[in-house]
């Protein structure tokens, strides 16, 4: 058994070596740190004309929500379906109770977690709102909102009942994303086309539909991940 593992390790390391050597010999594959963006699509993204058209200071955001917004819709769908799947696997219909965490929250924890909840929620919202200007955006922001909710969850025994409302948020934010895409098809010419003015680069209210989309992504991600965490923290009632 041990010998077999050693052999497997040897084979995999040889594989890594082969990949590295092949890439080193590859004339078209650029050496690390030595890339010419003029050869790539990205050179065109960095064109000042393109940036003005999009109006987002953070070029990664411009790509994620703008140029490749369709990928992001797919990405949100991946989270959606894995949240659905987790609920399905844990049998959401059966009677359930919260995971017993072996401790009961005292007064300090309860108050402290409320305060922290507010702080984390604010930071999460800030990150989402400024996604087109600074690093961050819908995905980390949404996850922060979900973690704020997780905190309340740990502190409050009665919280589970309220979390069901997330289903509506989850459905509405996802549907709105597609609807905005369809509006682009109707009001402009193409699916997901920016039909609002781009504004000035660097302003909070710039970049047309992209901040709206990022907020929707944030809400969607937040509600999906809350749903996933909720399911992971629930166990079947023994009775």
């Amino acid at each position, binding site marked *: 058994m041990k010998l077999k593992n050693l052999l497997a390790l040897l084979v995999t390391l040889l594989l890594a070596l082969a990949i590295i050597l092949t890439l080193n010999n590859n004339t078209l594959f650029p050496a690390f740190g030595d890339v010419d963006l003029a050869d790539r699509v990205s050179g065109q993204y960095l064109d000042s004309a393109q940036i003005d058209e999009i109006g987002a200071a953070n070029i990664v955001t411009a790509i994620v929500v703008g140029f490749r917004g369709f990928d992001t819709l797919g990405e949100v769908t991946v989270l959606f379906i894995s949240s659905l799947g987790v609920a399905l696997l844990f049998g959401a219909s059966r009677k359930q109770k919260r995971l017993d965490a072996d401790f009961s929250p005292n007064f300090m924890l309860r108050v402290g977690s409320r305060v922290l909840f507010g702080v984390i929620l604010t930071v999460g919202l800030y990150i989402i709102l400024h996604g087109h200007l600074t690093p*961050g955006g819908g995905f*980390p922001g949404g996850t*922060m909102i979900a973690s704020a909710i997780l905190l309340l969850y740990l502190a409050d025994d009665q919280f589970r009942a309220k979390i069901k409302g997330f289903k509506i948020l989850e459905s509405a934010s996802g549907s709105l994303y597609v609807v905005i895409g369809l509006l682009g098809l109707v009001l402009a010419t193409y699916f997901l086309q920016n039909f609002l003015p781009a504004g000035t680069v660097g302003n909070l209210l710039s970049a047309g539909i992209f901040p709206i989309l990022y907020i929707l992504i944030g809400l969607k991600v937040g509600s999906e991940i809350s749903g996933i*965490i909720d399911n*992971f923290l629930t*166990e079947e009632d*023994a009775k």
Partner: protein
Amino acid sequence: MTAFDILSLILGVMMVVIVFVAIHAKKMISAVLFLSLVSMLAVVAFVMLKAPDVAITEAVIGSGLVTSLFVFTLLATRKEGVK
């Protein structure tokens, strides 16, 4: 050799070693914690490679969320085992 090269050499070797330890860890929980450590080192690497968006996302989702999901799973099944 610049400071960047030295730093990336150290970082790369550390990550490979920790990955190896994580894969061969005896206990499940230690494998998960080593994974979390690798993820945090990856965050450092992302910052070094000038990818702040990715670094934030990896820090929050990669090392935060994924680790907690692993821990919740282990927690829930450990309790089942006791019963």
